[in-house]
């Protein structure tokens, strides 16, 4: 589906968002930071889709908001067609707003209840003056028809539509400026399952028609698998595993991904009968204000050893299109007994620095390289 020839529209490198936590009272000193997103890198090609999955509070929405520049990242780069927009101000962003659009989660909250559907969909075109005022109405109707709504409904108000229809209105609005990147922040989570399928199919039509790169944020693994050729799994502000659909769902290497996938209901399994082994994660997600040292997942990980508390595992490329951040990356039940990362990081098996050894630099890049670490040869 996605050939190598397609250029990368969006590249995100070392993206970090730390929200300051202030003390109460008059002085309001900064007493800590919520490390919502920490050193996240990925890239999306034109017409492609990257899925971001993870549980609530893992930073996936924050990442989406930074890409659409609702938030200004603490550090890192967001390159849109090669230009770093991470530090752009309001004025500089204005022309780019056309190209990066967003679909919101809540179809009830994302449309202004006091405006007609026509006015809502026309808003972006009025702001950017992309087409003459006289043609706006025709264009709005065209867009409404494209998303499967009656174009005669432009005079209606959002409250007269169902959740699925409202989400279609939101999609029509985001398409009004013909963006190149669409950040879809849980676009179907608030909808019924039957409606989810329709909206997902619509999004696929949209993608084909306009060649849009999607950053698809969701917590539903099945939806992401259906929509995104490439998936990244986030945990506590970091990408722990990332890869193409087949390798990530077929052979997850990170214990967290394995737990996530085992927790998702599987129709095929139900048809066969019997129960699948579920991996139960113990405890809660640690606070992002004070995340665990080393690997952030170690407090809940069954494989965790000394090294995990001392050294943070890099997001290592382990396949043609597969990256994982774990010292003991391996297929379920087949994890290596020795950390695979020691040679690259210049540490011994318990995580202490080896004299004279240096860590390999630039282990983390937004895209995939032609060479990778072969897990089988490491053991």
């Amino acid at each position, binding site marked *: 589906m996605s050939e190598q020839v397609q250029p990368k529209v969006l590249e995100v490198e070392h993206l970090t968002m730390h929200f300051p936590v202030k003390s109460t009272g008059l002085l309001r000193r900064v007493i800590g930071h919520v490390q919502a997103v920490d050193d996240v890198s990925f890239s999306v090609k034109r017409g492609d889709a990257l899925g971001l999955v993870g549980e609530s509070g893992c930073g996936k929405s924050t990442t989406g908001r930074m890409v*659409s520049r*609702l938030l200004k990242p603490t550090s890192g780069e967001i390159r849109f067609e090669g230009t770093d927009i991470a530090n752009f101000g309001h004025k500089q*962003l*204005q022309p780019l*707003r*056309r190209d*990066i*659009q*967003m679909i*919101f*989660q*809540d179809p*009830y*909250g*994302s*449309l*202004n*209840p*006091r*405006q*007609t*559907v026509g006015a809502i969909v026309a*808003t*972006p075109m009025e*702001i*950017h003056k992309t087409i003459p005022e006289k043609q706006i109405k025709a264009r709005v109707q065209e867009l409404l028809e494209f998303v499967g709504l*009656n174009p*005669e*409904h432009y*005079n*209606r*108000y959002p*409250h*007269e539509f169902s959740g699925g229809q409202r989400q279609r209105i*939101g999609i029509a*609005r985001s398409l009004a*400026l013909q963006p190149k990147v669409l950040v879809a922040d849980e676009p179907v989570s608030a909808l019924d399952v039957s409606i989810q399928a329709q909206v997902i199919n619509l999004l696929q039509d949209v993608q084909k028609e306009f060649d849009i790169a999607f950053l698809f944020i969701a917590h539903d693994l099945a939806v992401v698998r259906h929509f995104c050729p490439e998936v990244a799994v986030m945990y506590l502000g970091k990408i722990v595993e990332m890869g193409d659909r087949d390798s990530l769902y077929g052979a997850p290497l990170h214990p967290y991904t394995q737990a996530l996938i085992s927790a998702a209901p599987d129709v095929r399994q139900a048809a066969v009968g019997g129960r699948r082994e579920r991996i139960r994660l113990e405890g809660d997600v640690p606070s992002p204000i004070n995340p665990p040292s080393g690997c952030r997942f170690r407090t809940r990980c069954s494989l965790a050893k000394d090294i995990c508390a001392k050294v943070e595992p890099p997001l290592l490329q382990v396949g043609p299109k597969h990256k994982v951040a774990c010292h003991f990356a391996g297929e379920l039940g087949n994890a290596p007994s020795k950390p695979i990362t020691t040679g690259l990081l210049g540490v011994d098996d318990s995580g202490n620095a080896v004299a004279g050894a240096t860590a390999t630099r630039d282990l983390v890049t937004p895209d995939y390289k032609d060479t990778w670490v072969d897990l089988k040869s490491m053991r």
Partner: protein
Amino acid sequence: MSQSGPETTAAIESSADEVVPEAIRGRSPRELALIRFRRDKGSMISLGVVLLFLFVAVISPVLTKLKVFKPYTTNFPLLDIENGAIPKGNWGGISWAHPLGLTPGTGTDVLSRLMLGMTYSITIALLSAVLTVALGTALGIIAGTSGGWIDAIIGRIIDMTLSFPQTLMLLSLSSTLTVTLEQMGVPKGNFARGTYLILVLAVFGWPSFARIVRGQVLSLREREFVEAAHVFGASRWRIYFKEMLPNLWAPILVYFTLTMPAYVSAEAALSFLGVGVKTPTPTLGNTLSDSVNYYGSDLVYFFVPAVVLAAVVVSFNLLGDGLRDALDPKADR
């Protein structure tokens, strides 16, 4: 969304419309509120009464100019001078010429005084309510949207104003500040006193409304449609006035209709304390405060202004309640 009666009907009607595509037209939240309002008998009656009072307030000065009314003309022959200048005859001197009787002491016509008094009282209440709502909306939006230290400063000003003993200040400063106003070029006498009243009511009235608006803005600000507007690159101006303000009309309207009667009675209370428009210019307040002196000797004169004032306050209050129910059907009664 609530599925209350009118909306369901709207849905049914509009789905019937779908047969004829040309006829499709949505109903705005405002239209739906209007439909709900029209259904409520109490609201419609109070609207009728309020409109009647407003009509009276508008025509009274005209009628006075045309000499149909003579609110300032004294009728000493109709008073029982020996007996404390109480109007002659039963029921406070009610007659065809003077349907609500005469004012003891001066013999002026009570009906015409009350009608003209309504003009002054409602003007004062209306202007103070407009000022209150305008100030409250503006400062509430500014505080809510900017946050940070601006919000903190406005918040502290609100706290200070609300904790200020305003009646005391009104009383103690009324003479000096009225003089100041006169020096600033406001026409002397009752005009300056009325202006002072309007200003004071507004200055002490806006904080509570600013708080309401700020709260609304804080919740609106986090709604996704405002974020969507940011993503489209909408300007601040556009977000304030096109996205937020339309969602604030309901509280503004309701607060306005509920503030009006409060200010009408505030004017009366302050007249009683000697602040505000003075006789011979009639207001509901100074007529009432004058009537209190005759509770023993002239019961009709004692009751009539009180009943009229109560009617004005109650009808405006019921109108405000009805509006609130119509605009926010989810709120419990």
